[in-house]
């Protein structure tokens, strides 16, 4: 018997006798995983989470989540005899007296940063390719919840060592909680077990950090992966890839081997980062004391956004009816992040409402083919980036040798200007790239071969696109729409498009679906108007205009800019 036969006969039969798995596992083994490098971003997040669980378990064997004061006597001599909390002392102990302790601490911290960074990159990929569209809205929402929890989990985690830097972070957390109207003072006293800092905050954050949040993460990750598995992957446009199939390599053995390799890649990267790149050297910061602080205090990168909002917002405060409303803290702490997260959560539904597109989408958009969405995404990135940079404005001012206050003043304007600029620039770039694609479609690929015609003229030869290249371009017919007035003359608007809201919706639809128009023969219409494709492979433009919806429910006539049955 061969090796496979032995395995099947022994273990395989034993398991199947008990679990009835032959059919299910056959399907599982042949499950197809489409390939694209951006699909790895979510895997990085998953694997950093696993690394966090492994290294975190190791750390918890030695860490003492206690604020009891002790006098340090250990391997790090500069702090000998210094009074500090047990939490800080045990972190020093992990770093200097436990073999591999420093490495595990550094891997844990790098993996945490990588975890959040990978989540951010993964979410941007999902957004820019439209992978959140029906039927994947629920997974998008789960992702946003996990992103929020990841920020909290990170903040609580790096607060645990009770060093001067993280203690200052907790002090800021106290100030933010205090700013909440009516209940803020109570919340603060309950969280800290009395006035700041108290003796309870570290053990409380510890149990949230090692049990509560990881438990929620495990549940949400399970749901996230199960939904992804159940609905099957999206795929990037390409030859033979349609809305009704999945093209790629099977789980067994290809995806198993690749994803296993990728886990080791991720682990290798954080291990080497933990070896060569020092992170969070708490022994240099010293133990926390409310009286002390170090200049240039910087939180982990993912908290930089909130740090920036707190720095940039003016000092507005109300004292009314014997109460203080700290707008200067409340607004920056809640509003910008709330806008981004709430906006992201509602976006799939807003987009559905505007376009009336309620079909399933399994083939991703190339970002250039959804210029407005891509532009909105880049505007949010710019918004985030301004606050994030402002969160390090002291460092920037120091390095660029400009006034500290000037950086804040710039940021106060840039928060509004940068997203607008990002929006317009991105949209122009996307439309330009669409024209480039159209050019390739119409004129073929330049071959670099120069030919002399009998007339003496020199021309460069071009060749038409191969089917594969054509499919990867994802250029589908996008007929131009007539102007709203002309369109109104042509047809009676559907009921949901009448009235003020209907007109707003129509206008939004025109903005959202703006693209370089292309007819079914792959010819450009020119630069007028915008377009939806309705998938008609023939017919002149006028006839198509008449058949186009006015932005109403496009499911009814199966049109839209991403019709499943595009030109074959």
């Amino acid at each position: 018997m061969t090796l496979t036969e032995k395995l099947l006969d022994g273990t395989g039969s034993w398991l199947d006798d008990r679990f009835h798995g032959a059919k299910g596992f056959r399907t599982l083994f042949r499950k197809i995983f489409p390939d694209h490098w951006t699909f790895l971003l979510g895997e990085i997040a998953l694997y950093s989470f696993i690394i966090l669980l492994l290294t975190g378990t190791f750390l918890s064997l030695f860490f003492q989540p206690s604020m009891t004061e002790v006098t340090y006597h250990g391997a790090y001599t500069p702090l000998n005899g210094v009074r500090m909390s047990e939490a800080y002392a045990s972190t020093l102990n992990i770093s200097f007296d436990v073999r591999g302790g420093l490495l595990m601490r550094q891997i844990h911290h790098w993996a945490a940063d990588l975890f959040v960074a990978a989540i951010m990159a993964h979410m941007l990929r999902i957004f820019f390719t439209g992978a959140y569209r029906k039927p994947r809205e629920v997974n998008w929402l789960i992702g946003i919840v996990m992103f929020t929890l990841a920020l909290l989990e990170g903040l609580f985690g790096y607060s645990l060592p009770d060093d001067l830097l993280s203690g200052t972070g907790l002090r800021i957390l106290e100030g933010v909680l205090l700013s909440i109207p009516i209940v803020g003072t109570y919340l603060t006293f309950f969280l800290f077990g009395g006035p700041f800092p108290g003796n309870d905050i570290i053990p409380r954050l510890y149990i949230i950090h090692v049990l509560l949040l990881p438990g929620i993460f495990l549940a949400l990750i399970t749901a996230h992966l199960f939904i992804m598995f159940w609905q099957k992957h999206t795929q990037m446009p390409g030859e033979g890839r349609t809305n009704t199939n999945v093209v790629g390599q099977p789980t067994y053995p290809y995806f198993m081997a690749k994803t296993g390799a990728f886990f080791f890649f991720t682990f290798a990267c954080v291990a080497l980062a933990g070896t060569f790149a020092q992170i969070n050297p708490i022994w240099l910061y010293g133990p926390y004391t409310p009286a002390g602080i170090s200049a240039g205090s910087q939180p982990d990168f993912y908290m930089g956004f909130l740090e920036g909002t707190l720095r940039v917002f003016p000092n507005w405060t109300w004292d009314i009816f014997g109460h203080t409303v700290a707008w200067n803290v409340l607004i920056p702490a809640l509003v910008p992040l709330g806008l981004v997260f709430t906006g992201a959560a509602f976006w799939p539904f807003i987009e559905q409402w505007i376009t009336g597109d309620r079909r399933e989408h399994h083939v991703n958009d190339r970002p250039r083919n959804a210029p407005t969405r891509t532009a909105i995404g880049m505007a949010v990135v710019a918004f985030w980036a301004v606050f994030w940079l402002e969160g390090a404005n002291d460092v920037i001012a120091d390095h660029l040798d400009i006034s500290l206050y000037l950086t804040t003043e710039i940021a106060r304007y840039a928060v509004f200007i940068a997203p607008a600029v990002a929006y317009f620039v991105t949209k122009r770039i996307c439309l330009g790239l669409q024209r480039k694609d159209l050019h390739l479609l119409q004129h073929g690929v330049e071959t670099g071969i120069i030919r002399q015609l009998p007339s003496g003229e020199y021309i460069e030869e071009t060749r038409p696109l191969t089917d594969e290249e054509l499919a990867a371009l994802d250029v589908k017919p996008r007929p131009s729409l007539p102007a709203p007035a002309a369109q109104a003359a042509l047809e009676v608007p559907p009921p949901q498009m009448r009235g003020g809201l209907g007109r707003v919706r129509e206008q939004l639809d025109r903005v959202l679906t703006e693209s370089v128009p292309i007819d079914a023969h792959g010819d450009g219409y020119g630069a007028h108007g915008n377009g939806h494709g309705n998938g008609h492979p023939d017919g002149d433009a006028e006839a198509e205009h008449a058949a186009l919806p006015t932005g109403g429910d496009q499911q009814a006539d199966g049109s839209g800019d991403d019709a499943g049955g595009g030109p074959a």
Partner: protein
Amino acid sequence: MSDTGVPEGLPDEPTDAPASPQRVIGTPSPAQARTLLGDGAGDGDRAQLAPRELPADPGNPQRAKRAERIVAGLFIFSLLASIGFIAAYVGLEVGSVDAVLRSNLALGLSMGLAFLSLAVGAVIWVRYIMPDVELTEQRHPLASDSADRKAFKQTFEEGADASQFTKRPLLRRTLIAATVPLAVAPIVLLRDMGPLPGTTLRHTVWRPGLRLLAYGSNRPITPAEFSSPGGMITVVPDGYQDNPDALAAATAIIIKFQPGVLVFGKPSQIQGGYVTPNWTVDNIVCYSKICTHVGCPAALYEQTTHHILCPCHQSTFDAPRGAQVLFGPAPRPLPQLPLTTDAQGFLVALKDFQEPVGPSFWERG
């Protein structure tokens, strides 16, 4: 897996398979037909299966052969690196900064290389040794078909009817009424996590006659000692220098000015950018160190401009003018601590801060 037509997996079923000669009397037959290998009929069994979807061998055997050697080499390297990791753990002690550096380098490098060579090896294996393949799987609409939906609707309605949930509003409403406090109860349980705030945030431990100690050295200060104008030192209340809760509110800074620099005003002008005159000693003024934004220590002092800067969010306070806010998100000046000297000539508090220190809170007023 079986084409005998006999239902599989049932115990002690009779099978068509010939009894094994080694069979012990009284034991069931080996029932080979129920293994995943099939019933031993061989090719007849396989003929029923779909044609092979994955090629058995790589398209380029020479390249695969080369890749195989490289991958095996990488795996051996990974093995050696892992052994190196264990050796580094056993051989390298920690316990001093230098030893930790060596140990960290050896452990991390061996661990990283072990994982990296495994990863690279596996990728080469997939790309060059496994035959390249691309399969297509069909998707089906996620929505169930209408028959299934109707059947579910019926099941759901039958269940609802059988439970009587819809028909008996009394049961329904009392159940809902019963669950509401159940949801509130866990929140009530959190009440003992901390004391009620009361007026805690309005006071600090400063009281009349309490000495100011220089933070760090914990020594009392005489105005004469602190004579060089322009300096700023952090002070803490005597007896509370190791009490973080007290320090979180009471930590203060004292600054000595040249005569004539301080801008004095009446106590009623406390918000207006003036220093209260009879709260200073010999041009030494004392402010709370806790920033009125979110409570970071306002620890930086620029002698030439007399600006106090909070390093967290860059609130800037004008020291000679009652620490009024010049820039940044802080809404109020740093409160001034009334100073005097005691019989021994040391700086002491005249009384506690007149207003709450630190960040805004709802009850602050």
